[in-house]
Structures are given as structure tokens and as C-alpha cells.
């Protein structure tokens, strides 16, 4: 199974992409889409050293995404108001370092997506062999608050999704 279908979610996503693109669920498209959904990951496999993400807790993922969506909208309003109404000099833009326990590359990727999608924060890079995240914050008022937020609101759920085993090992 794994040999022919490296990742079922990916294949489904590809099939969905195909059907969405063609806006059709005609048999021909289903067939062709399926062929592509199988073939494309297979052909791309040599270039995927980290393999594909295995989502252990889909529900946790959806919860996380929903929360993030709200956070994004909120941050968006904040950033907009800063841009429109505050003097640039008054904005306290800072780099901060967030210690990370998350190790899964896919988890880190998701984290980066969430952080970067949230206006006001930009992921710069992982430091100290991935134990620390360098972030840039648009308007920093309280560094510790940021660190805590990221640890609890983002890192924790992501670890739940991608590395529940290690998480349980740490917090029994």
C-alpha cells in the first residue's frame, strides 16, 4: 500500500485538485484524476526526504486551524489599525526568540504557516539546531506574552497533531 500510495491524504488532495480544476466529476475525469493522484506522488517521491506528514489527530488539527483563523482576523485588524493610524516610529518592531520543543518537520512547517499567516509576526529562522525560533514581531508589547502564546496556542496543538508520542512522553 505504502509502496503505491505514499500518502493517502496527498493523493486525495491531488484528486480533489484535479476535479476542482476541471469542475467536473465525470467518469473520465475521475479516472484521469485518480491516475494522476497516484502517479504524481510516486514520481515526486525521490525528492521527498522527509516523507509525508502523518496527521495523527485530525480533530486537533481542525481546532487549531479554526483558532488560527480567528487569530488571523484579529491580528489583521490590529495591523491595519497600526498601519493606518500609528506613526511608524512608534511601532515597536522586535526580534524575539521562542524556545521550541516541536521537532517534526511537518509540524514546524505548519507552525511557520500559521505564524506567517498571522499578520504581525514573521518567522525568521530556527536557531540552535532547531531548539529556538527567531521571530519578528511587528508591534511588540510583551515578549513573554508572545512566547507563551506561541507555545500554548500553536506549538502545543501542533505537537498533538504530529507528534503525540513525544508529547505524552514529556507530559504524562
Amino acid at each position, binding site marked *: 500500500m505504502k509502496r503505491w500510495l505514499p500518502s493517502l491524504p496527498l493523493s486525495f488532495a491531488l484528486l480533489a*485538485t484535479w476535479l*476542482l*480544476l476541471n*469542475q467536473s466529476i465525470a467518469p473520465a475525469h475521475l479516472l484521469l484524476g485518480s491516475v494522476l493522484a497516484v502517479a504524481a506522488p510516486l514520481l515526486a517521491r525521490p525528492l521527498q526526504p522527509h516523507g509525508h506528514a502523518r496527521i495523527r489527530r485530525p480533530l486537533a488539527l481542525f481546532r487549531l486551524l479554526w483558532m488560527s483563523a480567528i487569530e*488571523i*482576523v484579529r491580528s*489583521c485588524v490590529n*495591523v*491595519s489599525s497600526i*498601519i*493606518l493610524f500609528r506613526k*511608524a*516610529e512608534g*511601532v*515597536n*518592531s*522586535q*526580534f*524575539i*526568540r521562542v524556545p521550541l520543543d516541536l521537532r517534526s518537520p511537518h509540524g514546524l*512547517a505548519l507552525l*511557520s*504557516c500559521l*505564524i*506567517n*499567516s*498571522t*499578520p*504581525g509576526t*514573521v*518567522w*525568521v*529562522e530556527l*536557531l*540552535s539546531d532547531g531548539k*529556538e525560533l*527567531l521571530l*519578528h514581531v*511587528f508591534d*511588540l508589547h510583551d515578549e513573554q506574552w508572545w512566547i507563551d502564546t506561541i507555545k500554548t496556542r500553536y506549538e502545543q496543538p501542533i505537537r498533538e497533531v504530529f507528534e503525540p508520542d513525544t508529547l505524552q512522553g514529556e507530559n504524562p
Partner: protein
Amino acid sequence: MSFAASLPWWAALPAATFLVLGGLITLIGAIGLLRLKDFYQRIHGPAITITLGAGCILIASMIYFTTQQSRPVIHELLISAFVLMSAPVVAMLIMRSAVYRDLRAGRASAITGGSNSQVPGNDKQP
């Protein structure tokens, strides 16, 4: 605008709202890009465009075409997906390149923004 004539209110109103919102956010993002002080601030401007601006307009498009074509038109989701996949990459790469550029040039103040914040750097540096 011939197709729009047949649009019912219940679709037109949210579509219009999302459009206006999307347009505004996009503009604000661009304003941020233009008027903020330095690069590290400016990079936060377009972020709103990419996430919320794009989202609003995509939703508007979905609403509009679904009503107009009388069938679910949701392929805009693809765009959202692709944007969500590529935007973080772009942001982190531009940011990192800027950081190291400034570090190499010895413009640490540009990074710290003249404040007391930590300078990012290589911990392994001897």
C-alpha cells in the same frame, strides 16, 4: 456586467461586502508596504493582503460565480491553498535574507531597530 444583472440580493450583498473588504485590506497592506519605516516593519504590511485580502476576494468570487453559474464554483479554494503553501516560504526567505544581509553588512541596528532587542545570529559562532 451582463451576468451580474441576474444576481439575487442575498448573494450580491455578501459578495459586495467581501469585495469591498478585500479591496480595503489589500490597499491597507500596500499602504503599510509604502509608509512603514524599515524593511522589517514593511514585511508585515503585505501579510494582511495575502491572508485576509485574498481570502475575502476569493470568497466573493466563490459566491459570485456559484450564483451566476448556478452550480457550486469553489475552485478558488485551490488558490487559497496554494497561497497558504507559498506565502510562508516567501516571507521566511525574504526575511532571512534581509536579516543576514544586514548582519553581514554590520547593520545590526537595522535589525534591532535601535531598541534593546536581541540581535539574531549564529549561536555556534566562535
